[in-house]
Each structure stands twice: as structure tokens, then as C-alpha cells.
């Protein structure tokens, strides 16, 4: 007797987001099925990989990471160009120097840096603030204006500053990262609030604030999976692509930071594995944009994604 393979039929679809413009614009989302189940629905776009650039020299990055950008770390433009050379799909500029407790750089200063980076690279840009909600609202508004029409992705919007950031995105043609701390209910609510200001779901990337391998990865995975199942079963309020700040989390871990040792092996190998395993796991949970730090993690994830995107093999 012939066996019919049961196939799930989904009613919903994730919104498709375009970042940047021209031949190197990045398109993500649009999935009509769970990650890489090509037989059950369409996976129109490969998840995109970004490398992270800071507007100031990081003081606490381990040598195995800073070594990849030697001589460039105080120069965000040169650093960003190096990321292009390494093959990143996008550059993610983090405006660390705007933090009030650090250098407290002004919105205008930040905008000059962001503009210089955007003009120096031929791939799309993500710009992330320092994480202080009020300051981010000021800084990112200025950045949005300076980069008007470039269709960048800015973040992170929270329930406390989304109004200002959404207006800045709407006025200047950008997309927004909506960030909530591992809580699907808050995340859905923030999406609703942003979309009610008329920013469509194709311009919202959800940031669930992921945890790295060994530090809450499973929790992040479950939330992302549930978000994706919600989107596929027709919950439009969850049907936005997911962005994961992998590098920021993975490079905080003891496993990435501990030096070479007999027991734990070589740090360079171990740290890159930690970052790329975290990334490849969250790719399976539905991550659409993955922000990494190490170029070797980028290469490994690219190979992995190329295999996952092959159709007709599952």
C-alpha cells in the first residue's frame, strides 16, 4: 500500500523584509513553513548574516576576536569595509560611544559616524543604539534623518521608546528592531503598538533577546519556535522576521573567553564554535537575521545555510 507522507498545511506567512537597496539589498523572511521544511512550504530567502562593528574600540573583546580586525578597531569605516571583505551580508553598527556612562557621544556625532559607514560600504546597514532607551530615542532619530532613504534597520525599540523610533522610521523610510526580553506576550504587544502607528510588519524585525549556548539558548529557541508557529497558524501580529544578536551574547560566555588550556582546548577554535553553534541553533528556531562577531563564525554559518537551503532533500 502506498504511504502518503503527511504534510502540514500552514495558513500564515512571515512578512518579507528588505534592508538596503540596489543589487546588494538583503531580503529576509517570507517563510510559509517551519525552517527549511522545503517540502511543506516556501523558504524564499536565506537567513542573512551580519558582522558587528562598534563606533569605538572595544575594551573587553578577547584577542582571538580583535585579531581579526587588527589596526581597524578605532576606525568604524575601515572596520566596516573589512566586514564587507569577509563576506558579511550586512554590517551592524553598534553606537556604544553614545552611552551616557561611557563617552556620552551626542546624537549628531553618532549620525556622522553612521553616515560615514553607510557611505563606505556597498551592503545594507543595521544601526543599534547603546541600549539606554531615552538616549537611543534621540540618537537613532538623528541617525534616521542622516540616513534618510537608505532603508536601514535601526534598533532597538522597546515599549518605552518605540513611539519616537517608529516615527523616525516612518519619516525616513527605515525598518525597526522591536526588542522584548524573552517574552512572547510582550513581543506581540510591542508589534501591535508599532504596527498601529502604520509601520507594516515587513518593516519590523523582532528581537527576542536570545541567550547563547549554555546560557538560556533553549529558552530563546522555544520562544522563537512558538513565535514562528503563531505566525504560520495565522497570527499576523507575530508574523515578522526575527533578528538575533548572537555575537554579543556568545562572546560574553566563559567558554568563549577562557584562554587555551589542556582541559578546554584552543580558545580560537572553541570560541568560534560557541558563536556558530549558537547561531546555527537559532537559525533552526526561525532566526532571519543573525548578527555575529567573528569572521570564521560567519564563514561556517554560510556553509551551513547553503546546505540547509538546498531543496528536495527532505
Amino acid at each position, binding site marked *: 500500500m502506498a504511504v502518503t507522507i503527511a504534510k502540514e*498545511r500552514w495558513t500564515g506567512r512571515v512578512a518579507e523584509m528588505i534592508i538596503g537597496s540596489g543589487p546588494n539589498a538583503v531580503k529576509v523572511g517570507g517563510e510559509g513553513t517551519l525552517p527549511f521544511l522545503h517540502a511543506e512550504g516556501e523558504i524564499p530567502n536565506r537567513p542573512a548574516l551580519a558582522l558587528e562593528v562598534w563606533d569605538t574600540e572595544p575594551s573587553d573583546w578577547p584577542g582571538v576576536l580583535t585579531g581579526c580586525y587588527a589596526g581597524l578597531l578605532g576606525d568604524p569605516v575601515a572596520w566596516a569595509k573589512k566586514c564587507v571583505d569577509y563576506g558579511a551580508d550586512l554590517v551592524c553598527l553598534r553606537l556604544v560611544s553614545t552611552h551616557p556612562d561611557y563617552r556620552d557621544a551626542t546624537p549628531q556625532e553618532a549620525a556622522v559616524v553612521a553616515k560615514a559607514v553607510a557611505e563606505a560600504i556597498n551592503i545594507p546597514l543595521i544601526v543599534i543604539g547603546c541600549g539606554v532607551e531615552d538616549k537611543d530615542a534621540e540618537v537613532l532619530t538623528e541617525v534616521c534623518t542622516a540616513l534618510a532613504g537608505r532603508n536601514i534597520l535601526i534598533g532597538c525599540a522597546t515599549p518605552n521608546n518605540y513611539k519616537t523610533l517608529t516615527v523616525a522610521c516612518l519619516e525616513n523610510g527605515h525598518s525597526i528592531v522591536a526588542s522584548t526580553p524573552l517574552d*512572547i*506576550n*510582550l513581543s*506581540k*504587544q510591542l508589534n*501591535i503598538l508599532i504596527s498601529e502607528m502604520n509601520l507594516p510588519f515587513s518593516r519590523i524585525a523582532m528581537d527576542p533577546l536570545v541567550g547563547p549556548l549554555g546560557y538560556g539558548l533553549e529558552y530563546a529557541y522555544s520562544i522563537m519556535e*512558538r513565535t514562528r508557529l*503563531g505566525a504560520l497558524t495565522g*497570527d*499576523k*501580529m*507575530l508574523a515578522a522576521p526575527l533578528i538575533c544578536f548572537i555575537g554579543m551574547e556568545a562572546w560574553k560566555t566563559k567558554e568563549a573567553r577562557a584562554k587555551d588550556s589542556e582541559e578546554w582546548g584552543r580558545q580560537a577554535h572553541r570560541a568560534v564554535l560557541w558563536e556558530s553553534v549558537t547561531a546555527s541553533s537559532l537559525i533552526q528556531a526561525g532566526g532571519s537575521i543573525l548578527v555575529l562577531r567573528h569572521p570564521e563564525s560567519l564563514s561556517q554559518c554560510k556553509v551551513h545555510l547553503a546546505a540547509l537551503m538546498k531543496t528536495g532533500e527532505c
Partner: protein
Amino acid sequence: MELIGEHINGMFKDIREAILKKDPGPIEYWARRQEEKGAHWLDINTGPTVSQAEQPAVMEWLVRVAQSACTLPCCLDSTSTEAIEAGLKVHRGRAMINSTSADQRKMDILFPMAVQYGAKIIGLAMNEQGVPKDASARAALAMELVVNADMHGLSMEDLYIDPLVLPANVAQDHGPEVLEAIRQIKTLADPSPRTTLGLSNISQRCAERHLLNRTFLVLGMAAGLDSAIVDVEDEMLVDAVAAADVLLNKNIYCDAFLRTYRQR
């Protein structure tokens, strides 16, 4: 939970008059209004005053007018298979047929029609002998519907089985039987067939109709009810459905759950 708005039915005075005068106004109004109030489908019923011969033309007109005013699909509610087919021919998107019974003669006409037009279909768990008395008799007729649908290649997600409620002041003992029937129907196939109810019948000629409707709807949802033909003018009924969808873990909670339930 899918709500099928009941108002475009010739049994209501304003709709009956609109049909007689060929006045699209009230039909357009109720199409838009029910969409705003949270309906997923519009039930379309020509009502008893339209003669058998006129029914196909009236159904076709109602479907065209209703769909010109809103984005919802229609649930073509008629005992005349000619009227249903007339509606299917002009319907935009996937329609729902309302309904076939478990009579072989009707199933042999309406299941192929559903497949031909890519429509969903409501199957009533009754036959020429009338409404069954208990849950197991309802489930037995539901199985007839499942088998016949399957033979025609209609997928279970497109079959909505209605175990039929009777008014609480006439046949009170049917209430728990219907709830049990819903539970049994959901186990008849995998994936399960869908379930539906013509809800307002439970409160015909009763006091506190809205309360009875709303309460039975939530009881039904807990038993596995997937949809119902309802009065979406009852805001608290729609609120109760939104709340039950959250509490049954069908929709992901957010603070705006009442509002999001109504958004399409």
C-alpha cells in the same frame, strides 16, 4: 475560533425587504458591519420567502453584493443545491457550503460540488430520521460524513461537522450530548474534522438569549468546537471567544487580545 456572522438571512426583516426590493444597501451594511465586529465568514441565506425557483438568482445576487462590500468569504446557506452552486459560481476566494446532511443522496451531490469549487462544507450530523438523541448517534452520523468526504478527496480541515443544538427550553438534555459529540467528532480522523454549530438555536424562545449563547459557545470551545454561526452584534460573545481562545492556548496572549481578535 472562526465566527460565521448570521445576519444576512432572509429570516431577518431588513434582509427580507432588501431581497424583495433588490436593494443592496442593507446587504452591504451587514457585510461590512459583521466584518468589523469580528466575523470570519458571512452566512448567506435567502430565507423562506424566496421561492425555490428564484433561490439561485437571489443567492448569486446576495453573494455578489456582500463580497463587493467586504473582504470576507461566504457560507452559502441553502437547502437548494442549485442555489448553492449559483453562489459558488460567483464567489471570490474559498466559499463554504452550508450544508449537507448525512443523507447519502445529499452527500453524493454536495461533496463532489465542494471538491469541484474548492469549497469547504458543513456536514450536519443528521439524516432523514431527524436530529439524533444522543452523542453516540451524532458521532455515528458524523462518521458517515467523514467517510464520504474522504472518498471524494475532501480534506478533513475542509469538513465542518455540526452536531446540531436544540433549544434549551425544549430539549435541555441535548446540551451535554452535543458537547460530548464534539469531543468524539474530533477523534474520528487525524487530522480531525472541524466542528461548527448554529449557535443561536440553543436559545430560541428562551430568556437571556445572549447569555445562553455565549455560555454554550465557551463550553463548546472547551470540548473542541472550531467555529460557529453566531450573532457578532453581541460584543460580549466575541469577547468571550477571544478570551477562550487565549485560555485554551489557541492564540498567544497579549494585552490587546480583545482588539487583535477582531483584526483581520
